[in-house]
């Protein structure tokens, strides 16, 4: 086989030329993922949002209410930006998005507290913005409980109790929360670890499908097939090889970015995650080839691949857990390569447990990779018969 216009490497060279001739490939393989990598990691660079804007409505305006407010402002995640005169003014500020929540201290709080008649203070948060709302709630709730305990503690001290006894009385059972592997509750760790590969998967699915079907559209598929001696498997694998290399490089970049530069939890070393990322790319390519072969229309197969890529983000369950979804969608989640990558990441990077626990997830990714073996013969048929329809 001395002829240099045939065989695996000839197709690889041809594909590199094709990719080079269209800026579209560069944009979608390198620029788009790189943009998202930088975007997500810098966007949430703070890890946990600090100094969230909040307000207060102090109708009481007494010693007690002012001491509550002073303490509230000393929390790291809450910043009291303004004091409002009335409840409706604060609500309007919330609707204007100036604040995410406010503390409401009604008139007579001190009077009731000092005469032991149990006043109520209220916490309002705008749950339209779920993350800031939840975080503010945590601070404000602690604050409210502390304010209450402070009053109670004074009474106990006055009765002669020491601090140990006082706390033993005020809070007999306390919770000690251990957030395993992410004790800072870092949102960047929580979201970027799956968001970056998710963008990559989306691009792999689309680029793979697009590049195969443009051969059909541009009527170059016969030439392509003949270069592989009519072996569709050889034709496809050679064509995708340069893309695999490029995407692997992108995967390496995000892995180095996350675990090297940003120092995210990586409790089982680099290799299991590198293997997972590499297998994720191959699995996505396999899935895209499967779709491209099954549906002999550029637009429809590309649409399906796009849908799969976009849908894999919510359905992989990294933000909203799969167990909270309806049963039908729980079953559907098994058909997304990203879901398995996410499970591997939880085991290998976050929790750092033995590879044996994740073995089946790796196998599932492998299954996606060899999925096209079932229908790739259809692609060969299409290559010889296909005509492009708008």
């Amino acid at each position, binding site marked *: 086989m001395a002829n240099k216009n045939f065989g695996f490497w000839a197709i690889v060279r041809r594909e590199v030329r094709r990719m080079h001739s269209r800026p579209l490939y560069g944009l979608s393989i390198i620029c788009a993922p790189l943009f998202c990598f930088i975007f997500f990691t810098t966007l949430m660079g703070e890890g946990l949002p600090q100094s969230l804007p909040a307000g207060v409505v102090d109708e009481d305006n007494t010693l007690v209410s002012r001491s509550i407010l002073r303490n509230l402002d000393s929390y790291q995640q809450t910043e009291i930006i303004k004091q409002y005169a009335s409840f409706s003014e604060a609500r309007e500020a919330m609707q204007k998005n100036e604040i995410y929540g406010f503390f409401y201290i009604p008139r007579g709080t001190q009077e009731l507290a000092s005469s032991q008649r*149990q006043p109520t203070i209220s916490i309002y948060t705008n*749950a339209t913005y779920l993350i800031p709302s939840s975080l503010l709630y945590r601070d404000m709730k602690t604050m409210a409980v502390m304010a209450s305990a402070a009053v109670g503690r004074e*009474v106990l001290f006055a009765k002669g109790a020491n601090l140990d006894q006082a706390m033993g009385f005020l809070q007999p059972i306390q919770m000690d*929360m251990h957030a395993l592997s992410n004790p800072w509750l870092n949102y960047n760790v929580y979201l970027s670890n799956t968001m970056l590969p998710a963008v990559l998967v989306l691009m792999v699915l689309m680029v793979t499908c697009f590049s195969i079907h443009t051969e059909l559209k541009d009527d170059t598929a016969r030439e392509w097939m003949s270069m592989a001696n009519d072996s569709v498997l050889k034709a496809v694998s050679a064509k995708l090889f340069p893309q695999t290399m490029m995407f692997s490089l992108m995967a390496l970049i995000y892995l180095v970015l996350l675990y090297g530069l940003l120092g995210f939890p990586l409790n089982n070393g680099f290799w299991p995650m590198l293997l997972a990322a590499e297998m994720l790319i191959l699995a996505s390519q396999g899935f895209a080839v499967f779709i491209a072969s099954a549906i002999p229309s550029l637009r429809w197969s590309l649409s399906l691949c*796009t849908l799969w890529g976009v849908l894999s983000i919510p*359905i992989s369950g990294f933000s909203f857990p799969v167990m*909270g979804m309806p049963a039908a969608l729980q079953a559907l989640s098994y058909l997304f390569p990203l879901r398995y990558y996410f*499970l591997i990441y939880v085991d290998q990077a*976050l929790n750092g447990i033995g590879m044996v626990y994740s073995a089946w997830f790796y196998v599932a990714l492998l299954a996606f990779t060899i999925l096209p073996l079932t229908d790739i013969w259809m692609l060969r048929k299409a290559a010889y018969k296909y005509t492009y329809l708008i």
Partner: protein
Amino acid sequence: MWFKDMLDVSGKELRKTVSDTGVLVFFIIVPLLYPLLYAYLYSGEVVREVPVVVVDECRSATSREFLRKADATPDLKIISYCADMEEARNLMHRHKAYGLIQIPSEFEGTLVAGRQATVNLYCDMSGLLYYKALLSGCTMVSLDMNRDIQMTRLSGLSDWEKDVMTMPIENEYVTMFNPANGFQVFLIPAVLILLLQQTLVLGVSMMAGTENEKRRAGMVLGSEYSNPITVLGGKALAYLLVYGFTATYVLCLVPWFFHMPQLWQLPTLVAFIVPFLLASIFFSITISFFVRDRESCFLLFVFASVPLIFMSGISWPTSNMPVAWRVIAQIFPSTHAINGFARIGTAGALLQDVRVECLALWIQTAVYFMLSLLIFERMYRSDKMPGAEFVIAMRTRVRKNIRVAKRDIKGKLRIEK
């Protein structure tokens, strides 16, 4: 007559939309089905009954009471009582449980002695909702039991005195506008708005791609009209007509299907959505000029949905974004529209509450209209110029020659080596 021309363009554009299945998919089918799928995905709002395991080293009446009450909360479900930490950890590793409650052996003794006893919680951090469920479930139980314990210690006082003693200042929590504090109400409005913008971008650029393919094949388009404003206006009118229906379905019916809060008032909603649609339409037309063929729009624009939803600040708060991203986010209609619509629809804001966003959308409409006019005019001129095709043909030939020459040089170099 410019008005007649405009209607003429509009009619043609509508016909083109209807006859092109690819565009119809973006304008009708995706907006029809995708929101349903997405809203259905989050219809659970929150996670309930998170499976947890328990290691009870105390095995006393109090520890059992604590666990029984934890199991009874809507947040948690105890799936196994383990003999030791090893067994519990194993269950967590196999994804059977997402949390671990450990009660130390001295738990009851400490309580009886009147000191503070500790319950240890361990949480799998693969999802923050597990953390939230475990913490809020157990906190609820501990607050409840704390009161009981205090009550028994305060025997001799009246019930009311005990109440005041244990909690001198009561507090209450109100999650406004999103009663279940759930994912659906928080995320779906953003997804709906983004969907409108993205399908417009994809559909319009697919049409532009088709036009470009035809132009490359030698057809000249749009030369029969007197000026580019009528062409642009006509196109915008056609899209606005289609998206009037699409937006009504997506923004009003979909939330209604899923019983999401809908506090908007019609004048506010219309006055806000019209500039959003106009801004999106001219935004789409502007960027569609960069699309060379039908299908490249997928590769170029779909991925942007992911960063765009984050840029809006609906998830990660705007106040905590780096300034650069906050500035870049201003370019996109979706940023303002998501913020505005979330507050109009979910929080019942009025037009004066969202006037900043509304103004921003009108400014975007003007800017993108001017931009698209500028680009369109250049293109239109080059098409109408005598011999435009000749210039294009020459340019392609020169490029091809250069490519061939480069290849030859490379070949020679290789031979020399």
